[in-house]
């Protein structure tokens, strides 16, 4: 299945943030979305997540059976600042989520298995999440999105503020779950993008373009990406 963005545009008054975004994303791949500060990465994600309305264009899934609309439950959106309800414990949040989505979750497991999966220690599972560390909140947020099993995964700078061990665990998780999904991963860290992603997509001048990796070693590839980004006037 492919996820297609077709001539998407979004302006704030005179400022055109997304001018004419068109792209075809294929499932089973992790896409690294790169762009200068202010290039519109978060705006693009917010548009796809329907948190803001678009001015023009469309986005949809396409497979052999044809096109279909993107429903809210198709999307998992993970923000750079982790958001979990403070007044619940980790276990309660997970239980609530499982209750709500009973029926749509394939192969539900005991709650503790999930905690083991993201290595949250037993003693933390019954604490209020307002007392969780940044990394633990981030893991919970990722976990919920993993279980929800969305077709389209939007990750906005998700690893930037995690310690190296947790970041490595997360990368591994993403690689494991990319099968059958489309993962779009925005980041400012060039090394991370090159290391983790199967394809690099640049957002510049309000448009998306892919950077061809073929026949280049990593250093030459990075240089090519930097050159392309330098042309963009944002700062």
């Amino acid at each position, binding site marked *: 299945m492919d996820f297609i963005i077709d001539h998407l545009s979004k302006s704030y008054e005179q400022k055109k943030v997304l001018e004419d975004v068109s792209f075809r994303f294929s499932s089973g791949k992790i896409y690294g979305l790169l762009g200068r500060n202010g290039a519109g990465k978060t705006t693009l994600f917010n548009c796809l997540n329907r948190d803001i309305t678009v001015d023009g264009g469309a986005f949809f899934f396409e497979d052999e059976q044809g096109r279909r609309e993107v429903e*809210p439950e198709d999307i998992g959106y993970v923000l750079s600042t982790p958001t979990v309800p*403070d007044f619940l414990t980790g276990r309660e949040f997970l239980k609530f989520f499982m209750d709500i*989505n009973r029926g749509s979750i394939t192969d539900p497991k005991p709650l503790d298995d999930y905690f083991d999966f993201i290595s949250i220690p037993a003693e933390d599972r019954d604490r209020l999440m307002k007392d969780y560390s940044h990394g633990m909140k981030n893991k919970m947020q990722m976990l919920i999105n993993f279980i929800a099993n*969305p077709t389209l995964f939007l990750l906005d700078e998700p690893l930037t503020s995690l310690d190296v061990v947790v970041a490595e665990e997360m990368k591994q998780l993403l690689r494991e779950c990319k099968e059958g999904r489309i993962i779009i991963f925005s980041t400012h860290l060039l090394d991370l993008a090159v290391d983790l992603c199967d394809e690099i997509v640049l957002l510049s001048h309000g448009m998306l373009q892919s950077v061809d990796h073929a026949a280049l070693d990593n250093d030459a590839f990075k240089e090519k990406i930097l050159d392309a980004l330098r042309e963009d006037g944002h700062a």
Partner: protein
Amino acid sequence: MLNTMLLSFSLKNTYRVNAILHSLKQIPLLKRLLPDTLYRVRGLKIFANVLAALYELLSVFLFKFLYVFCFLFLPPILQEGKMLPEAFPQIYLFLALLGAFSNTFLFNPTKEKYYAVILMRMNARSYALANYAYDMAKYLVGQLTAMMVLGGLASVPLWLCALAPLFAAGCKVTVAAYTLHDYEKTGKATSENKLGKLDWVAIGMLLIAAYVPFLLGWFLPQAALAGIFLAGILIGALSLRKVLTFREYRALYQKLLTEGMATLSSAKAAPAAQVKKNISADTGITSKKEGFEFLNELFIRRHQKILWKSSKRIAVVAACIFALLIGLLFFLPEEDRRDMSVLPLTYLPYFTFIMYSVNRGTGFTQALFMNCDVSLLTYSFFKQPKMILRLFRIRLREIIKVNLLPATVIAAGLCFILALSGGTDNPVNYLVLIVSILCLSVFFSVHYLTIYYLLQPYNAGTEMKNGTYRLVLMATYLICFILMQLRLPTLLFGGAVILFCAAYCAIACVLVYRLAPKTFRIHG
């Protein structure tokens, strides 16, 4: 020095002009007309500059006039029914002493000071002195005018009116000099906004000294007052040297302003942190329910402090007040007892305001957002229309229950008073009384939850961004306040209230069902 003064003035003005433009952009409708580039539109800039200049003028004259009028001119008139020339300068004396350390100008950690001295690295000493000179000049001009005009009206000798503001300025300079001296010795930078216990005691004593003797009719002889004023001016003039020769303004401001800014920026995050504090840490709270009922039960029980506990407290207080009134009824003679029946029979509009004040709706929606929805709304499963509506129903049921407890007590109390005072033979009055009070309670519960779902006023940073939401809250307050002034027969007003509340709730729920799946999200 003049250059510094002009620079800092233009900085302050830019800040003020942009603040005015920013607040214009918050007003619904108007914000659609104003372009995003409004900060560079010349006409708008000029308009905001005029407003800023007006504000500066107001702060020189109007506020000083208000101060002198409220604190010096009015009290004798209220107390004695006439102006007392002796009281005027005597009260001023103590208030000037109070202002000397609570409003120093020099040690007020303002944003402008922070931007100029810390961020823009202006010369701290010339900045401090230039601004001190400007503030003092402004103060003297305003105070002298206000004192001469209002003091003159109160028949206080004009020379005394002229001396008084100079004395107040002298006191300020003396306190400033002492504080600078103290800083040199101890390294402590005292912000005037962080008053210690001793300062509060001093403020209390000075207020007592200002107003109690005047109430008792004790006045200092004019010569003594003049002597004190002159002495204050003299000491102030001598102290000025310290302020002018002090060298360490940079270090002092570094300390004062970084601390001040820390409290300023935490003040922005304060509501969210405050709301988080309301989460009960009691590990015994659990729930056996499932899904949204599970979420809701945990939310309600972990927020007891702002929901049930607070509503029970209001119910108890209301019950006590009614018990007192009912007790009073037994001691009143027959005719006076009948007079009491005006409370339930014509004061019903007043109870709109009371029901407004005791409603827990705003606290509920604020906690809902900051402790729950701000995070859950980022998950797509939570945003599905049927989920939003299912949770809306549960939440509406809960907040109605929380608010109905005090409403029931108030309705019962009013009925008891009506029955015991023997004010009516028409039993419909009782029915209307009970139903309309309960309706008001339900109305406010529906109202707050509806505008929360339809306007969702917060952004991801838990700041309230929605001008329309603010206007609706203000309008709600205003309408309740205006209703408080009305006296209408309970049958008429109560009947109207019941009809209005029923119609409102029906319309509100239809709107939420139609629109909330689109409007209930975190706005960028």
